[in-house]
C-alpha cells in the first residue's frame, strides 16, 4: 500500500507559541531536533517556552514578540520566518481568545475583538501562508480551531462563530491548494485539561495538552483534513450537530 504518511516536520513556525496545546505539538518535534520560529505577545513567556524547547533538543530557535491582532506587520514577520527557517514545513496557528460571551452579547466592541483575534488575524496569516506553501508545493498549514465552531450554543456563540467562520475559510483554502501538494489541517480540540481541572475528578472527556499534541502530530503524519482531538469528539459532535433545532434551541448548553 502506498503510504500516505509524511515525515514529521522539522522547520516549524508557531503563531501563538505560548499556547498549551501548541506546546504539546512542539515538544516532541523539539526532541527530534526541529528548528522553530516562535511568535507570541509576552517576551517573558516566550523566553520560557524557547528555553524549554531548546533544552529538549531543538536545533535552532528564533523568536518574535508581536500582537497578532496587528495584521499590518504580518507580512514582514512571515517573510522573516521563512527566511530564518530556510523553508517552512509546518505553520501552526495556535493563537486565540475565549473572550467574554456575556459582555459580547451587549457590547459589540467585545464581540468584534473576539472575531478580530480568532478570525480576521487568522485570515491575514493564512492568506500569506497559503500563497507561500502553494508556491513551494509542500508544507502543512495546521490551524487550531475548536469543536465550538460546529454549532452555536448560547454559552459561547461569539467564540463559536469566530471558529466556525475559520473552519469554512480553511475548507475553501484546502479546496484551492490541496492539489499543489499542500496539506491544510483543521484541528478541533474538545475539553483540554488545564491546570484548573487537574484536581477535579477527571471525567474521561478531559485530555492533557501533551496527549492532544500527540493526536495532532498523528493527524499531520496522516495528512488528515479535519482532526477532532481526541478523536472521540468526532462522535460527540456528530450527535450534537444532528439534534434538530426544534429541540436544540430548548437545551441549556
Amino acid at each position, binding site marked *: 500500500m502506498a503510504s500516505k504518511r509524511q515525515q514529521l516536520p522539522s522547520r516549524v513556525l508557531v503563531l501563538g507559541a505560548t499556547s498549551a496545546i501548541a506546546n504539546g505539538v512542539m515538544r516532541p518535534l523539539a526532541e527530534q531536533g526541529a528548528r522553530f520560529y516562535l511568535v507570541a505577545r509576552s517576551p517573558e513567556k516566550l523566553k*520560557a517556552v524557547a528555553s524549554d524547547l531548546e533544552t529538549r533538543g531543538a536545533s535552532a530557535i528564533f523568536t518574535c514578540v508581536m500582537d497578532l491582532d496587528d495584521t499590518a506587520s504580518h507580512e514582514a514577520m512571515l517573510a522573516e520566518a521563512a527566511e530564518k527557517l530556510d523553508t517552512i514545513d509546518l505553520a501552526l496557528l495556535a493563537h486565540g481568545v475565549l473572550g467574554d460571551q456575556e459582555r459580547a452579547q451587549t457590547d459589540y466592541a467585545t464581540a468584534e475583538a473576539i472575531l478580530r483575534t480568532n478570525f480576521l488575524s487568522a485570515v491575514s496569516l493564512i492568506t500569506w501562508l497559503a500563497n507561500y506553501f502553494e508556491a513551494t508545493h509542500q508544507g502543512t498549514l495546521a490551524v487550531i480551531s475548536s469543536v465550538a465552531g460546529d454549532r452555536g450554543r448560547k454559552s459561547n456563540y461569539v467564540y463559536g462563530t469566530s471558529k466556525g467562520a475559520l473552519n469554512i475559510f480553511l475548507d475553501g483554502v484546502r479546496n484551492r491548494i490541496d492539489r499543489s501538494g499542500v496539506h491544510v489541517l483543521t484541528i478541533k480540540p474538545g475539553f483540554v485539561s*488545564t491546570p484548573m481541572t487537574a*484536581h477535579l475528578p477527571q471525567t474521561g472527556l478531559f485530555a492533557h495538552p501533551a496527549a492532544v499534541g500527540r493526536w495532532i502530530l498523528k493527524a499531520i503524519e496522516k495528512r488528515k483534513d479535519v482532526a477532532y482531538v481526541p478523536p472521540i469528539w468526532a462522535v460527540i459532535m456528530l450527535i450534537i450537530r444532528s439534534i434538530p433545532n426544534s429541540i436544540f434551541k430548548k437545551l441549556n448548553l
Partner: protein
Amino acid sequence: MPRNSQPKFQSPKFESWGRYPKLEADLVPLSWTTDFPLTQPPATKILPVGAGRSYGDVCLLGHGTLLQARGLDRFQHFDPQTGILRCEAGVTLAEILDFAVPRGFFLPVTPGTKYVTVGGAIANDIHGKNHHIAGTFGCHVLRFELVRSDGARFECSPSENSDWFSATVGGMGLTGLIAWAEIRLRPIVSRRIQYKGTKFVGIDEFVAISKANTHSEYTVAWMDSVATGNNFARGIFMQGDHNPQPEPLTRSKEPWLTLPLDLPEFALNHLSIGLFNTLYYNKQFSKEKTALVDYEPFFYPLDSILHWNRMYGKSGLLQFQCVLPWEENQQFGIINMMKAITASGLASFLTVIKVFGDAPSPGMLSFPMPGITLALDFPIRAELSFDLVDRLARITQEHGGRMYPAKDARMTADRFQSFYPQWQEFARYVDPAFDSAFWQRVTARG
C-alpha cells in the same frame, strides 16, 4: 454564616491521593513562574499544590485558595556533562525520566510513584529505596527560586540563603512558592535493574538482611500484615542495582490501564487483603530470586494502573508512615505495631518496611532519620481505622520515633510538636499569606 448556604458560589471539594479529608477550596492555576504573586490576592489563605500525590492534608486547605503549580512544567537547562537539570517546579518526575533516561541519566531519589512534581518532592523532602546511600531528594537539590506572597524572589541553596533553603526543603509548601529548581541527576547505562528478592520471617531477620546488604543501591521490603503465629512479620526483602551492562536507552510507554470507577467498599476486606498477601508471599517459591527487570515495575509497581486509589472506594484510605530509631536488642516498636494491627482486625493492603541510613536531611522538618521506617495503608472503615492509626501514633511516640506529614491525616498537635521540636523555629519562615489544613491541625488552630 456557613459558606454553603449560598450554593451558587460553593467552591469545589478537593481531595489528596488518600481521598481523605475532602475540603472545599478555590483553585488558581499557575502556568508561568511570573504569575505569582497574584495580581489579585485572594481573600483567603493560600497553599501551593503539585500533583496532589500526598495522602493526607499537607496539600489541602479548607476555605482557602490552592495554587496549582503543575502548569509550571517547562525545562530550563540541562548539562549532559554534569547531569544538572534546571526545571520549573510543576515538572513531574515522570517527565524528567522521559527526558533523562534516553540521555543516560536517572533521578537521584524517587518515591514509589513517578507522578509527583519537583516542587512537591522538595516540599516533602521525599525519600526513596536508596535512602541508605543517597539520603533524601533535598540532598540532590542544588538551588531553587522561592517566591513569597509579597513579591520577594530569591535563590536558595545550601550556601546562599541557606536558612530559607532548609526551611523550604521539607517545608510543606508553607514558606512560599518554589518556582524552579536545579537538581543533579545520576548517570545510568541501562534501563534495567538487577533485582534480588529474599524471603524472611520476623523483624530480626529483616534487620539482619538489611544490614548485610547496604552495598545495594536500592533496598526495601514488603511485609505481610495479616499473617500470625509462625508466619508473623514474614515478607520479601527486595534489593536492586542499576544494570552496569550498557543497553539502548529507550523512553517509557504510556500507561494504558485506568481504574475507571470506585470499587465498592466491601471489595477490600480482611479476607481479600489476607488472600492478596498470601499470594504475594508465595509468588516467589524459593528463598531467593534474582532477575533483570525494567526500572518501571521495580520502582513504580502501581503506576501502570492510573487512579489505583479508587480501589479503596469513595471514602478513601488512611496512610501511616513512621520512622523508629534503633533499639538495643529487638525492634519492639515495629513488633508492637504489627500486633496492634492484628488485634484491631483491620489489615494493611501494602506494608512496606525499610532501613533509613544516617545521611543528614537538609530540611528543618525533613522526616527521615536513622532507623526503621514502616508504611501502612488502611481502607477507611469509620472509627476503626482512625482508632488504629491513633494507636500506631502513640506507639511511635513511645519509641522515640516520628510520623511522616506527607502520609498523615490524623497526627495531633501535641504529637507533631514533640516529633518535630524545630517547628517553632520553622514557623518564623512561614509566609504570612500561606497556610494548610495540616498546619492548622498540628499547630491547633484549625
